[in-house]
């Protein structure tokens, strides 16, 4: 569930439990990146940060903008979290593809889908001596009997 909140500078930021959705500004250049990182950094420093960057408004991307995205992803992953992109504008999509970083990020058509991807039910960890399929199918004998 998304809850709306306003950042210090009035940027739209939606919180969804532990998932934060933040809108990337239209001009994601050196000047805007600095301010954007000021707001995002505290979130990245939390335990298991889960962040969705909404990119529908992006029209211009600076080199520092793409570097910032990569840096944020790195910081999130370091803390066992993740950073995902949502609603990529065509411009942003082209640049990320050109620079071969598009595949680095998980991206979704909407923020809601990106948030849902964080809230997907996790699979229980499987013990070392159990078959690889047991987490999904359980006991194979039971599956065969059922069929």
């Amino acid at each position, binding site marked *: 569930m998304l809850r709306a909140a306003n950042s210090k500078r009035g940027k739209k930021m939606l919180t969804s439990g532990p998932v934060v959705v933040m809108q990337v500004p239209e001009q994601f*250049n*050196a000047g805007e990146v600095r301010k954007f990182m000021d707001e995002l950094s505290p979130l990245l420093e939390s335990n298991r940060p889960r962040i969705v960057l909404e990119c529908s408004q992006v*029209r*211009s*991307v*600076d*080199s*520092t903008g*793409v*570097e910032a995205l*990569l840096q944020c992803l790195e910081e999130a992953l370091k803390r066992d979290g993740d950073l995902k992109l949502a609603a990529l504008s*065509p*411009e942003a*999509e*082209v*640049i990320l*593809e*050109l*620079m*071969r*970083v598009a595949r*680095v990020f998980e991206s979704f058509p909407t923020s809601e889908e990106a948030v849902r991807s964080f809230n997907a039910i996790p699979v229980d960890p499987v013990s070392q001596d159990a078959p690889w399929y047991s987490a999904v199918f359980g006991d194979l004998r039971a599956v065969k009997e059922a069929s």
Partner: protein
Amino acid sequence: MVGAVVIVGSNETAGGEKGLSPSNVSSGSFACVELLGRTVLGRIIEDFLRGGVDSIAVVASVPFTSAVLGHEKVGFFAAQNLWLEAAKRAASFEAESVLLVRLGAYVELDVADLLQFHRDQGKRLTRAWTDQGKLEWWAIDPTVVQANRELLSVLHTQAASRYLSRGYVNRLESPRDLRQLVVDGLGGRCHFRPQAVEVKPGVWIAQGSEIERSARLVAPVYLGRHSKVADQCLITRGSNVESNSQVDYGTVIEDSTVLANTYVGIGLDLSHSIVQGDNLVHVQHGVRLKISDPVVLRPIRDNRVRAGVDGSFWANLEVRNVAMSSMPKTGQ
């Protein structure tokens, strides 16, 4: 005797119905771009000469260079009022018939057949059509041409016979059309064939190009004169790298066009795009970017005569313009 007038760069068309180029590309920009080693303008003029046209006048609003203009039967005339200049040129031919083309689409049309049809119809004006609509091609009786009257007004008012052409047509109305023309040319679906040697099936390499040993060219692909492809590159899926362009280390060019005199940087993934200098158009996304980081894309200075690609080619593209100041050097 047959004369021909080719108009390049007019925003005015003879009507607004289906089959005519929209205003954003009615400058004929795409037709003046070097593709597979030659421009559409050059190929059309070749067709005219092969079809028996005795004198060709190319009328344009801006000067541009093209090897074809060096032919003895071809003259270049710059003018602000293109249709008036076209009338002057048409009137100056002592010709039985005059062909008039407003450059835009690439059309494979039997010129001799058109002229014979025009004569047989007995009308003073014949316009070429396809199943999809009108073409900007006419055969004109010189008696309707007046040197002091814009040809466009003649085309508006004079009744015209219809000549149905069944040849290949690409209207070159969008970047997608440009890419399609390249793909069709490489695939042999039209006469717009590469000006190069087919070193192996589907791989065309023009004179003077340099390909590093570990670069891979997967058919169909075209490399233009004096182009360079560095190590570990992959060029594939109907891509063309035009003359004097360079593709640097490890870059993948897929279903894309690298126009003449363009440097494409290291480790990039260029797909479904057209690039020239520091401009990029992504055909699928419909996005145009200007990339000011020379490490990624930049023009290559070339002093040789080349097909005219001036600022109007990009200015006329009706896609969303995005300024991009520089590109990251990491994350690859």
